[in-house]
Each structure stands twice: as C-alpha cells, then as structure tokens.
C-alpha cells in the first residue's frame, strides 16, 4: 500500500481524525468539566479546581452504588471464571453435544440484553426468587460466561497435548495433572478472562436494570440520576472511571497477548 497517492492518504487521515474526535468528544466533555466550570456551553479555563473530586468523596449515594458494583463484579468474576473454566475443560476434546451446549452458552452474549434480561426476569419470578443482588450476579454471570469460556478454551486448544501425556506417563494421577500441569498453563488466560468479565460487569446496564431489586449498581444509579441531570461531582467520577478502565484494558492486553508477540511488538 506504499503506492497510495498522497491525496487519498490525506483523505483517509482526515476521516480517521474525524472518527477519533467523534469517539472522544463524549469523554472529553465530562473530563474537562471535572476540572473547570462550564456554563452555557462554554468552558471557563481561568480557574481549574478539584472541588468536584472533593464533592465526590462526600457523595454517599454514589459511593454506595460504587461499592455495590464492585461486590457484584467480584462475585461475577469468581462464578464466571470457575464455571467458565469448568465448562471449557469439560467440552474440550469432546465431540458429542459440544457445539449445541457451546451455542447455548453463547446465546446470552449474542442476543440483545433486553431479551436475556427479560427471560431471566420471568424465570426468577416463576421460581420465586426475589429480585436482589443475587439475581444481578446471576444475570451478569450468564452474560459474561461466554467470554471467559472462550478465552480459556482457546488457551486449552493451543496447549500441547504432550504435556498432559508426559504427566500421565510419569505416573501422575488425573488430579495431580490438573493441579500441576493444566491449571498453571491456564492461569494467565483465566486472569485475562477475569479482567474482561469484570470490565463487562462493571458497565452492564440493560440486564441489570431489568433484574435488580432495591440496591442499584453504579450504571443503574447514574441512569436514574440522569433524568434529573448530573451534579458536577459525577464528572470527577467519569474521569476516575476512565483512568480505571484504561488501566484494566492495559492489564487485560498484557495477560491475553502471548509473550512472544508482546516482545516482538515492543
């Protein structure tokens, strides 16, 4: 593509810049307003302030929602990593029924969240399970399971079969082979899957709105507040969440991209 004429390169670069501006403008507005006061659409650049961050630290409503989100996220990660790994180990190398079960696991991720959410809502009602944080955790786990499963399965498939064979040849039991050989080889995929699961759970809004009880997670709380308009401290929260998610993203990339490739690129 070196023969690309100059004019078309300029055109492509211009479109790419436009796309970047479009994507970042919704992030730019709250971050700028977390440090500066904005009135009637124009920024007052003269007086930077951290007052919004101080106000955030005193907003109990938001902090409670944040804590709930973290609790839900951690429970979702534990449940989805344990069951996703279990399913990947079980389905790996099995032919009969695997594609059907795999399809079922992927359904909640492929279907619009409103359908998964409503199906779970009716299910909980039919089995008499009161809407609570438990139902939220189940909803999130069902949603992110496909990602964890897929991440672990891909690592399993790339793992050499000879490792397991060697372990058995050396007299190890199935249990020992699992703990000493398989699990250590899967660990980085599991960590990567866990980070992705946490990131998805942290921002899940649509399923949560449908299956939550009285306690709301951060996105649902923000959703409820948005109808009335946000107080400035929300902007501080946005800036912090952005930093946090970028950090998570960098971490996930570290664990998911194989080492050789990573060193090749740096």
């Amino acid at each position, binding site marked *: *593509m070196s023969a690309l004429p100059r004019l078309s390169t300029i055109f492509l670069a211009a479109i790419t810049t436009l796309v970047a501006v479009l994507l970042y403008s919704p992030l730019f507005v709250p971050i700028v307003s977390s440090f500066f006061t904005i009135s009637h659409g124009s920024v007052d650049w003269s007086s930077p302030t951290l007052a919004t961050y101080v106000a955030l630290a005193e907003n109990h409503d938001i902090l409670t929602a944040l804590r709930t989100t973290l609790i839900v996220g951690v429970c979702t990660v534990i449940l989805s990593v344990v069951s996703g790994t279990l399913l990947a180990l079980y389905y790996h190398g099995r032919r009969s029924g695997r594609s059907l079960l795999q399809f079922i696991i992927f359904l909640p991720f492929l279907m619009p969240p409103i359908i998964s959410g409503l199906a779970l809502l009716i299910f909980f009602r039919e089995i008499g399970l009161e809407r609570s944080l438990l139902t939220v955790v189940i909803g999130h786990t069902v949603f992110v399971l496909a990602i964890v499963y897929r991440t672990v399965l891909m690592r399993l498939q790339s793992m050499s079969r000879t490792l397991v064979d060697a372990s058995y040849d050396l007299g190890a039991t199935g249990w020992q082979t699992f703990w000493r050989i398989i699990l250590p080889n899967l660990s980085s995929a599991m960590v990567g899957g866990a980070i992705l699961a946490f990131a998805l759970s942290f921002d899940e809004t649509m399923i949560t709105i449908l299956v939550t009880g009285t306690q709301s997670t951060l996105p649902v709380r923000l959703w409820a507040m948005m109808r009335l308009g946000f107080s400035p401290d929300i902007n501080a929260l946005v800036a912090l969440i952005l930093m946090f998610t970028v950090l998570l993203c960098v971490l996930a990339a570290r664990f998911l991209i194989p080492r050789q490739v990573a060193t090749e690129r740096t």
Partner: protein
Amino acid sequence: MSKADSTLPAERRLSLLVTVLAFALPVVFVLVPLAIFLGYSFFSVDQGTIVYSLSLGNYVRFFTDPVFLPVFWNTIVLCVSVAIICILLAYPAAYFLTTLKGRWRYALLMLLLVPLLMSYVIKIYAIRSILGLNGFLNKALVTLGILQEPSTLFVFNMNAILLTLTLLLIPFAILPIFLSLERIPQVLLRASDDLGASGLQTFLRITLPLSLPGVASAASFVFVLAIGDFLTPQMVGGISGFTFGRILYSQFGTAYNWPFGAALSVALAVVVIAAILIGERFGRNRGISV
C-alpha cells in the same frame, strides 16, 4: 496403595459432578429461562394478572394493531441506517490503520477502541449535552455560519437516536473491518501493482472484495447492538423518537403486559437471528490463500 484406592472414587464422583454441571448450567440458566419466556408469549393478561392459557392473541395483536408494525419497521430502518453510517466512517479509518507500520497501527487501533470501555450511561449523557439546544454541535454550526440560530433538529427525536447510536457503536464496526483488511496478503496487492493496475483499480478489484466479509460482520454487529438498545432511545429520543425497544420495555413497566412483551421479544429475536445469520453467511472468509 490405599491412597490410590481412596482417591479414585473421589475422582470419579468429582467427574460425575462436573458432567452434571456442564450440562445443567447452560440448560438451567439459559435454555429454561428462554423457553419460559417463549411460553409466556402465548399467555395473556386480564386485569393485571397473567392468564396461563395458550392463545395466539399477542401475535395477532402485533400484526393487526396499527401501532406496532410501523414502529417495528421504522426501528429496523433506523438500525440499518446506523449500521451504514458506522461502516462509511469505520471503513476509511480501518483502511488508514492498515497503511500504518507496526507499532503505530496497533496503538491507533487501541486508541479507537478504548472509548468502548467507557461507561455507557455517561456517554449517552455527554452526547445528549453535545447535541442539545445549547450544546456544542449547535454552537459550532452557528459559529461556522451553517445555521442562523440553534436548532432543535438533534434533540429528542429520531435524528438524536441515530447520531447517538452511531457514536456509541463505531468501534464495533472498526474492529472486524480492520481484521479483514489486515488479513489480505500483501502479495496480492503487489502483484496487482506489478501487473499495471492503478491504486484505485487495486482497491476496487482486490482490497474491497476481500474486505467485504469484515464489512458484513461489522454491519451485523452494529445492527444487532442498535436494535437491542432500549436505554439510548429512552434517553435521547423524547416523545417522537419511539423505537421498538422502548415499546417492548414499557410492556414490563408502565403498560404491564408481560405476555405481550414476550411476544414482541420473539419478533425482535427473529430479526436479530436473521441479522446474525446473514452476517455469519457473508462474514466468512472464502479462501484467501496464497
């Protein structure tokens, strides 16, 4: 020896447990809820209580009531438009990325994907404030002299939904297109160049056809995500921007008709499955081999 004897049954019990769980988990938490949901679509509601007897009433209502089919159709058109706009913006950007070398390529790709991780609700809120009457877009258009005075063209209507969904979903179009462009062997492009084709000819005859699977995947991703969204239309659509997702959601809130909502969900699921299958059919790479 005794140790082996005692671990063996334990191991067998464990593997039985794993087998049961491997089948039970997907069935109980995914298949059963979906089946109950489908069953609900044949029930009805009488004075606030659900009548558990089978009828096709909900589906008849969906097809005969003058309200639902037009909204359903308009929503499909809206989401197809979102997919088209996303692709028109994402394709040049993805193409530009593949012209870059090594580290820059992936750094810029990351830069364009990071906004995906940002809180969805916050983004809707920010976009709404940008599109608003006193928002940045109106300010810019007035300053540039395109508009005489701030316009309500982008507030609380279908345009607002279209723009917001597009802004939210562009990254989902960039990634599959980028991956399909990146997979095109450079040899083919050089061969085309050697054979005397111009840059435009190479693009139209080699690059574009080979990247169409990525475009199909991108379109199907964006369409499915757009049509399933009920929060964005609720937040930026106002009264005139009424989409299928909102009607569906309202059946579980204010309208309180779960069985009818379930029937509407079935209609939505049919469209989504069709979109996924079309994306899958055309999104598969048919043998680029060198």
